[in-house]
Structures are given as structure tokens and as C-alpha cells.
């Protein structure tokens, strides 16, 4: 992933360079793709990243653990709760802070709702990439219901910051389970419609079947995770492989598919949404009573000094494995915080996959991988 444009002199005469992005309707943010094309066929794809670099990792070194909390949900703005929780859990693990049972389960509920919202948004955006305008409005309608639900707990719609060291800053309301069940029912009623109108659509199937295939070996060498890896037939999900939080208590499956094409990635995501609904239903049943936070103000500068040590903590975010490497030298601020974001590896595999496809497929493949550029740039 070099930032160099192929020079004009090195270019053979039968190909040309097309600079796609950083302002392009379907690069999903400020991603720039330098394409070498022969006619409409891709010869070479060179993703250029870093337009949205904000220095999150450096920021982490200059802030206390609590002050960095809001940054986390601004890395992947579509699954902020999951990132927020991950930071809290990493710090809790290193500091040895106990978390109440209710908070553990509540975190799972919020995270799974966030995953649903993220996947719903992806389905809409992906079909928009393929030229279908209408599905977006329907999936966003479902997503809206989830956002209202999350807003009622966290107070924000996109960049959530409810996690605290030792629990959550706000408790779930008494009527939260009832409202959540209404939303889940609405979602379940829509599955059939999506299946009929999207999976049953000849054009959609033609556009996605056999498009953008990468092998298990490519996934391994680039570190592809998440739905894209599961669509390649590898049942890897951090929630199952290295269970964290309250996940070991819940029954759920890891949907996989062997084809590894764009259709398989779509299918896996839809199945994952069904599994998320399953997890939430169980979590709502098992939601224990009790405090939501061990102690208020635990993260304040005076009190939170982490012991010397190194901690790696991984969670399954909506796009794949998200990892935090936290190095503490005993101060109030981390010595180093390194984030392993799923989209980076998922995008990197693209330059191996793309050549040979057409420009229209580029949009279809890029969309199917579901990259979030701000988390790559961080």
C-alpha cells in the first residue's frame, strides 16, 4: 500500500490511470484508489490511505485513560459501542477492575444492537453501490429504530461514549427490554422481505456471484477478519475463539460460506444479524439486577494509575477483529496504545483481488468488504 502514483513514463501505452477518489461517491469516505485500466478492465489497484489521519494513537499517549474514551467511537463510527467497550475492557483487565454482572450483559446488548445497525447500514450502502437506490431507505428505517433505542440509553446516536471503567455510565431503563423486543420483532419481520427482494433478485445475484473471490491463504497472509473471512469458509469469530465479556454465556452460531465471493459476504452478514438478534434475546432474558457501575469516578486522573504491564485485548467488531495493545509504564497515561483495526487488513487484500475485474466490479468488491476509512486512517 504505497502512496506513490505510477509515473507517466513507466506507463505502457495501452493502459491509462484513473484517479478514483478521495472524493468519489462510492469510495466510502476519503479513500483514494489509483487505478490502472485497460479499457474497463483493472490492471492494477493502488489504494492510498491517510487522508483522514488524526493521530489517535499519539493522542492516546497524551491523555489519561478516561480522557481517551470518546476517541474510540470515532475510529469506526458505525460500531462505536463495540470500540468503546473494548477500550474499557482492556483498561479494566490491565488494572484489575471488577465489572458488575449487569454491566457485562448490558454491554453485550448494546454492542449487538450496534452491530445490527452497522450491518443494516452496510446492506443499504452496498445495494446503493450496485445501483439499487430503494433498499437503503428500508434498511435505514430499521437502523433508525435501533438508533432510537441506543440513544435512549447512551444519549447519542453515532459516537457513543457510555462505557466507564467498571461498568456503564447509565443504566438500562426499566422498560428497555420491552422496547428492545419491539425493535427485534420489527427486524425479524423484515428478514423475509430482504431475502425476497435482494437475494431473489436476478441482477443482484449476477452482480455478486463469483465476484471478488479471495482464498483462505490470501486471508491469512493479509490478516483478513470478520464477515469477509467467514465468507471464505473460516469459522473465526473472536466472540467464540477467545470469548470475552459475557459472550460465553450465550448460544450462537458462526455462519460461514465457502464461496468467498461478494454474495457470500452479503449472505454471511445477513446471517450474522440473525445471530445478533438471538444473542440479544438471550441477554434480555438473563439480564441480572444490580449496580451498573462498580464505583463512580474511577477513571479520574487522581485515582487511575495502571500498573506496569502490556495488555492485548481483542473483540469482534462489526467489520472483524479489533485489537488494542496497551503498554503502561505505571502512569496516568498509556505509554503506547496500538490499535489493530479490521478494515486495514480487509482493504489491503483488495490489491491482490481486484486486477482482472471491471470498474463496475471494483465498486461491488470494495463495497462487499465493508471498509470504514476513518478507522484505517485513525
Amino acid at each position, binding site marked *: 500500500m504505497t502512496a506513490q502514483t505510477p509515473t507517466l513514463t513507466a506507463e505502457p501505452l495501452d493502459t491509462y490511470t*484513473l484517479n478514483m477518489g478521495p472524493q468519489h461517491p462510492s469510495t466510502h469516505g476519503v479513500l483514494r484508489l489509483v487505478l490502472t485500466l485497460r479499457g*474497463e478492465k483493472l490492471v492494477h489497484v493502488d489504494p492510498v490511505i491517510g487522508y483522514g489521519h488524526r493521530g489517535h494513537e499519539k493522542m492516546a499517549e497524551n491523555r489519561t485513560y478516561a480522557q481517551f474514551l470518546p476517541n474510540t467511537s470515532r475510529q469506526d463510527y458505525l460500531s462505536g459501542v463495540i470500540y468503546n467497550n473494548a477500550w474499557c475492557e482492556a483498561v479494566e483487565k490491565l488494572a484489575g477492575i471488577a465489572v458488575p454482572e449487569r454491566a457485562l450483559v448490558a454491554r453485550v446488548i448494546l454492542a449487538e444492537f450496534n452491530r445490527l445497525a452497522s450491518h443494516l447500514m452496510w446492506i443499504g450502502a452496498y445495494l446503493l453501490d450496485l*445501483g*439499487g437506490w*430503494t433498499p437503503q431507505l*428500508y434498511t435505514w428505517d430499521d437502523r433508525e429504530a435501533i438508533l432510537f433505542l441506543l440513544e435512549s440509553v447512551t444519549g447519542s446516536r453515532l459516537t457513543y461514549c457510555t462505557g466507564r471503567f467498571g461498568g456503564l455510565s447509565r443504566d438500562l431503563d426499566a422498560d428497555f427490554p420491552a422496547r428492545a423486543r419491539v425493535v427485534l420483532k420489527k427486524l425479524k419481520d423484515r428478514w423475509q422481505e430482504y431475502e425476497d427482494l435482494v437475494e431473489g433478485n436476478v*441482477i443482484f445475484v449476477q*452482480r455478486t456471484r463469483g465476484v471478488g473471490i479471495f482464498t483462505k491463504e490470501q486471508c491469512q497472509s493479509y490478516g483478513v477478519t470478520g464477515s469477509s473471512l467467514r465468507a471464505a469458509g473460516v469459522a473465526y469469530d473472536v466472540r467464540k475463539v477467545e470469548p470475552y465479556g459475557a459472550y460465553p454465556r450465550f448460544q450462537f452460531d458462526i455462519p460461514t460460506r465457502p464461496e468467498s465471493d461478494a454474495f457470500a459476504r452479503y449472505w454471511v452478514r445477513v446471517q450474522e444479524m440473525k445471530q445478533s438478534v438471538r444473542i440479544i434475546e438471550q441477554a434480555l432474558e438473563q439480564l441480572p439486577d444490580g449496580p451498573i457501575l462498580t464505583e463512580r469516578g474511577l477513571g479520574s486522573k487522581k485515582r487511575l494509575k495502571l500498573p506496569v504491564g502490556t495488555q492485548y485485548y481483542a473483540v469482534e467488531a462489526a467489520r472483524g477483529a479489533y485489537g488494542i495493545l496497551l503498554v503502561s509504564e505505571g502512569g496516568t497515561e498509556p505509554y503506547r496504545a496500538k490499535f489493530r483495526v479490521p478494515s486495514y487488513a480487509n482493504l489491503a487484500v483488495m490489491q491482490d483481488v481486484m486486477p482482472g475485474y471491471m*470498474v*463496475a466490479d471494483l465498486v461491488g468488491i470494495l463495497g462487499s468488504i465493508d471498509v470504514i476509512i476513518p478507522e484505517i486512517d485513525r
Partner: protein
Amino acid sequence: MTLLTGLRDWIAGFLGEFLATWLLGAALIMTFLAFNVLFLVLAERKLAGHFQRRVGPMEVGPHGSLQSIADMIKLLGKQILTPVATDRFVYLLAPLLVFLPTLCVASLIPLTGAEAFANQPYGLLVIVALSGVTVLSIFMAGWSSNNKYAVLGGMRSVAQVIAYEIPVLLAALSVVMIAQTTNLRQIVEAQANTHWYVLYQPIAALLFFIGITAETNRAPFDIPEAESELVGGFHTEYSGMRFAMFFFAEYTNMLVLGALGATLFLGGWLGPWLPGPVWLLLKTYAVIFVLIWVRWTFPRLRFDQLMSFAWKLLIPVALLNLVITAILVHGVG
């Protein structure tokens, strides 16, 4: 109609009979087409809104009915940009040329049995020939913009329109075989004696519909301006009224091809109670409604799939349909 005749006679007093008819007809058609575009844009946005669980434009005028006029004023007020690297002459010419063919075609559609602006014996052939010219100005626009997205859009457009004109022509030919004429007025009159040709030629009607969807560059065949791939396609570099010209041409093309479809397959101006032109308009808008409906339902095909769909499926089916029609017409009639 007496008012129009009077007006024509008055102009004929100082310009001559021929020129007066010509000018008045052109002015009438232009006015109608302009209003039609305003209406169609609004209709499309409203319908799209309702397909998508929205309400569509609501702010300007009652129920958003003046939205098109607001849009038009906005487009008029926009700065017209000409990028430095363009081929200036062609770049400026393309938006002017783009709706000329459609305008000519519009004048050839028979409105009623008695009144028609032009009653050509080879009307259908002229229409097919003229509508093929539209693609030229689209390619001119794409090429002269000197933008890679625009060139790609222009090239896609040429390939697509050429491919899809063939099934349209073959479908129209099977109607000609039954009606035994290429005069559009006589084709409609022939349908008065029997049934509408959509009943005799359902396959041809379907092929024709698919063909005009592609010719008007509408989803699922909107690849020349595929927004998620080519930004704006051939009109990427056009702004303000120049962009509006392409927009105007696209919607006019929809109307004209819809009217042609209504004439060939749905009995043109025929219908009880209402006057002929009203029936023709109703049928045309019914065709356009389906076009809009399809656009907001389907995703886009890929370019190679689009081409193989035309060459490997539509054209063989159209040819087969033509042969069967020929056998039936000559065997039975």
C-alpha cells in the same frame, strides 16, 4: 383549434404558409415538452419518494408541486463552468444537439386521426433513424469533456444504444408486419379494427420496453451515468443549464419513446369518451410510470452483462419472434 388556425394564418400573412406551420408547430412542441419535463421530474421524485417510504418534495408549493420550477430556477442561476482542457467547440455543441433528434421524433408521433404535425409515410423508419442520433451528442459530450469518467460514460453509452436499438427495431418490425405499413397513423388505425397489438405481440412489446429502458439510460441500464462508478458519467463536467439540457433530453426521450410504445402497442390515440391526444398522453404516462417503477426497484447491471443480455438473449428472441410473426402473417393472412 380555431385559435391556432387563426394564429397560423396571421403568421402566414408575412412569412408564408409553410414557414408559419413549421414555426408554430415547433413552438407548440417545445412548450409542451418543456412542461412535460417539469411534470415528469416532479412525478419521478414523488413516485420515488413513495416507493422508498418517503413523501418526496413537500416544501415548494402545495404538496411540493412547484418543486420542478424551483429546480429550474436554481439550474438557471448556476455558474456555467468550462474546464480548461476541453475541446471547446464540441463541448459547447453537445448540449445543444442532444435534444434535437428527440424534438424531431416528437413531431412525428400522431396525436389523433385528423390532426398530426407530420404525417410521414415512413414515419417509423424516420423515428428509428433519428433516435439513433442522440447517442452521438452524448458521445461528443463525453469525449470533449476530456475527463476519463466522461469518456468511459460516453463509450458505454454508444455501445449500449447500438446494442439495444436492434431489439427495439426488430420489435417494431413485427408490428409493421401485422399492420403492413410503416406509417404510424395507419398503424394506429389498423389497431382500431382489431385489438391493440400488445395482445398480438406480447413478446415484442416486452422487448420494446426493455429496449427503451436502455435507450433512455435508465436503471437497471443506467451504466453510462452510473453514479457509484463514474460519478456523473458523460455529463460529469457539465454544470448549470448545460447539464439541464442533458436532463431535459433524457426526460423528453422518455416521453417520446413512451409515446412510440403507446402508438405501436397500446393503440395510440384510440379510446372511448376522451379526446385522442388525452388517451395518447395517458398511455404514454402509463409506460413512463412503469419505467420509473423499474428504476427505483432494480440494481444496476454490469457493463458486460448488459451487452451479453442484448446480443445473446434479446436479439435472438426478437429475431425468432419476427420469423414467427412472418410465418403467421403470411400463412394465415
